[in-house]
């Protein structure tokens, strides 16, 4: 996990983006969820030694980022934070698999390097696309989509409440740890002796707050059922959006388009 203040900023940024207006934002959340899932499945279904065939998939995030006016840099920053985890495991491929796969003039790339690069590209694509989903849809709408998918009410309500209280609690955590730091003369982190009381106090406050939230819900007629209002219905443009991209993904998956393009241009026959 990253630095807590950064994490809070990240949530707030995505949250703010989710409330903007654009052609992409206007699409039905279910349509976006569907296309995102198809995209992810297709991307990770490419073989581990595939690079070129993957590249047309870049079109989807590119178009959506442009249409929705999303800022590229903050999204990329997120990728950079997640990347080390994937590198940690992926880096063993070039170390362990030296069989040569392709050679371009003096450079020979091993199967290991190719699969490593492939994993990196997949990581980039999957991370960016997941972020794009939330940045163009927003948490409430995702919850609506989940309800439409018959995900139980309890879970969706719980998800929304968790989401809602993350920001409130993170702010409290920031202040409490700052207060700790202010009086602890440069010690980094929380000392062993204080783990229990620091987290424990926070926990008790959290639970008290949960109780108050619950009462306030009950006072407004909450009976265990969660009513989020009406759900917009899927319209023509949503179906077109889903159809177009699904088709595009399937075509990309079925034909190695860049290879075709390259072969045409360089005139190689297999």
């Amino acid at each position, binding site marked *: 996990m990253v630095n807590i203040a950064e994490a809070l900023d990240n949530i*707030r940024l995505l*949250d703010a983006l989710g*409330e903007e207006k654009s052609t992409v934002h206007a699409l039905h959340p279910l349509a976006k969820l569907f296309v995102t899932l198809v995209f992810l499945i297709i991307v990770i279904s490419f073989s581990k030694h595939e690079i070129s065939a993957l590249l047309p998939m870049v079109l989807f995030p590119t178009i959506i980022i442009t249409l929705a006016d999303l800022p590229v840099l903050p999204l990329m920053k997120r990728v950079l934070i997640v990347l080390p985890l994937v590198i940690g495991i992926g880096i063993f491929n070039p170390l362990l698999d030296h069989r040569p796969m392709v050679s371009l003039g003096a450079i020979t790339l091993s199967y290991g390097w190719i699969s490593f690069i492939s994993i990196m590209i997949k990581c980039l694509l999957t991370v960016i696309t997941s972020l794009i989903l939330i940045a163009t849809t*927003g*948490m*409430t709408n995702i919850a609506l989509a989940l309800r439409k998918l018959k995900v139980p009410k309890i879970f969706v309500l719980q998800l*929304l*409440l968790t*989401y*809602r*209280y993350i*920001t*409130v609690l993170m702010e409290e955590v920031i202040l409490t740890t700052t207060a700790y730091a202010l009086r602890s003369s440069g010690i980094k982190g929380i000392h062993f002796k204080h783990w229990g009381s620091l987290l424990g106090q926070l926990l008790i406050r959290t639970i008290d*707050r949960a109780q*108050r*939230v619950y*009462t*306030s*819900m*009950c*006072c*407004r*007629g*909450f*009976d265990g*059922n969660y*009513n*989020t*209002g*009406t759900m917009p219905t899927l319209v023509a443009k949503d179906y077109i959006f889903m159809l177009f991209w699904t088709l595009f993904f399937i075509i990309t998956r079925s034909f190695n388009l860049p290879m075709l393009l390259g072969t045409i241009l360089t005139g190689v026959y297999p």
Partner: protein
Amino acid sequence: MSHYQIEANNITFIYPDGHQALKDISFTLSQRESIGIIGANGAGKSTLLLLLLGILFPNEGTISVGGLPVTKKTLPHIREKIGLAFQNPDDQLFMTTVYDDVAFGPRNYKLNEDEVEKRVVQALEIVGILHLKTRAPYKLSGGEKRAAAIASVLSMHPDILILDEPTNALDPKSRRRLINLLSTFNHPKIIATHDLDMLFNLCERTIILKDGQIMADGLTTDLLADETLMTLCNLEVPLSIQNCSTCTYKHML
């Protein structure tokens, strides 16, 4: 049926850990009355408000609201009648947008979405934050949060309004706007607060609590000017009626 909106008879409340928070409290609130509840930190104000809504139940004594006794069975009816704004708006705003939050109550009462929208817009207009309806509650400033919390209570069209320290953390202008707003409501109100100057503007009648007991119950103008009583209860004569240092004339607003 009683003609009182709220009737509390000899209620006593002891927290599960044995702390006695209220002792033998009795009072009534009639149709068009507004009551202020004051007292030191820990005097039992918030506890009393929670009892009125059946969030807690008294160990002894009875409470009735609009003629109905407050019991587990009657709770849904009673909560439809009373709107309670908590001391901390963070406890009250839990949805992702202000609109959804204000719509939460009406939707739970199964109103259709048109009617819900009408009520939400109306409530937000009253507190003057209609322009914030798509914002996330946690991004609002303290005053805006307070307004949203109050709107979320108003949208339920309660018969009685109960507010716990409504002016806390507001800047002076927002506080003034809230006071003006509250003074235009025609509902009976119960307000627990440390802001005695506000009380002076809003409630004709005041109940003073001390260590869980009623120390005084009477006209606000009388009680708040009684220096001995106020000092005894860890309170102060509000500035707006303190003696003018120049003319030493006790001036009432």
